[in-house]
């Protein structure tokens, strides 16, 4: 596959429910109560329980790694957690849409800019992965 600047990677939509937050808490060891306890989340000023930033980050990178097919080509991955993903207590949960574009190539390394959006709000900013082109 030739990687060229401006190329769009296949976008994906992820559903995040309360059950997903509990599962991620157990798997990651991050048991911060704002990710599972609505009372405490609201006490600290949040609208409701929010997803772990690292869950959002971990979902988003699959758009890159699944497209690439080889995780050893991932060189760096970083982002800023700008807005919380609020997860309501219902069967639908929150919807996270992730798209990604090859935003630059130099010296055998491609920059991929990711966009992660929930309820029309960008939840990750400066989300950039760099990959080995070949």
């Amino acid at each position, binding site marked *: 596959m030739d990687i060229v600047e401006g190329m769009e990677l296949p976008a994906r939509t*992820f559903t995040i429910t309360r059950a*997903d937050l509990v*599962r*991620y808490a*157990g*798997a*990651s*060891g*991050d048991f*911060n109560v*704002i*990710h599972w306890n609505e009372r405490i*989340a609201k006490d*600290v*000023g*949040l609208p409701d329980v*929010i997803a*772990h*930033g*690292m*869950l959002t*980050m*971990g*979902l988003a*990178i*699959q758009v890159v*790694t*699944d497209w690439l*097919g*080889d*995780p*050893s080509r*991932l*060189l*760096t*991955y*970083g*982002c*800023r*957690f*700008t*807005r*919380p993903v609020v997860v309501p207590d219902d069967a639908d949960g929150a919807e996270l849409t992730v798209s990604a574009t090859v935003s630059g190539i130099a010296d055998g390394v491609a920059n991929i800019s990711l966009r992660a959006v929930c309820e029309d709000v960008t*939840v990750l900013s*400066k989300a950039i992965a760099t990959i080995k082109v070949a």
Partner: protein
Amino acid sequence: MALNPDFVGRSFPPAPAYLVGREKIREFARALGATDPIHLDLEAARERGYPDLVAPPTYAIRLSMAAAENVVIDPELGLDYTKVVHGDQRFEYSRPIVAGDELVCTVTIDDIRSAAGNDILTTRADIATVDGEHVVTSYSVLVARGTDGGDA
């Protein structure tokens, strides 16, 4: 409360080695809904040239955040950990983490500053095998803010 600037540049002895287990990788991959068999199926991982199951790229946070927490609770640093949210995260990879890796994580406080009344701490966690092979470095920006909440 302002953080103690004497902590900038300070490194902390690594925690005991962390042995990466296959079932932990499967559990983490499933929690992310990851479907690439490289995380779940040993044969698939070996066919693609890996010695064992491959961890998803953000798995390194398990080690780096636990190690950083042990450091930033030092009362002399002055960080109110109950008000901390995760501001930024960045990984620099030498290779993916695979099951069977025995990893040590050394945490350094790279930067301390204040902005808009928030205390901002940048930690770096260098993760290497017990034999000294670098695997991944994890940079985390932790922000201690007021009681108005925020993301994490």
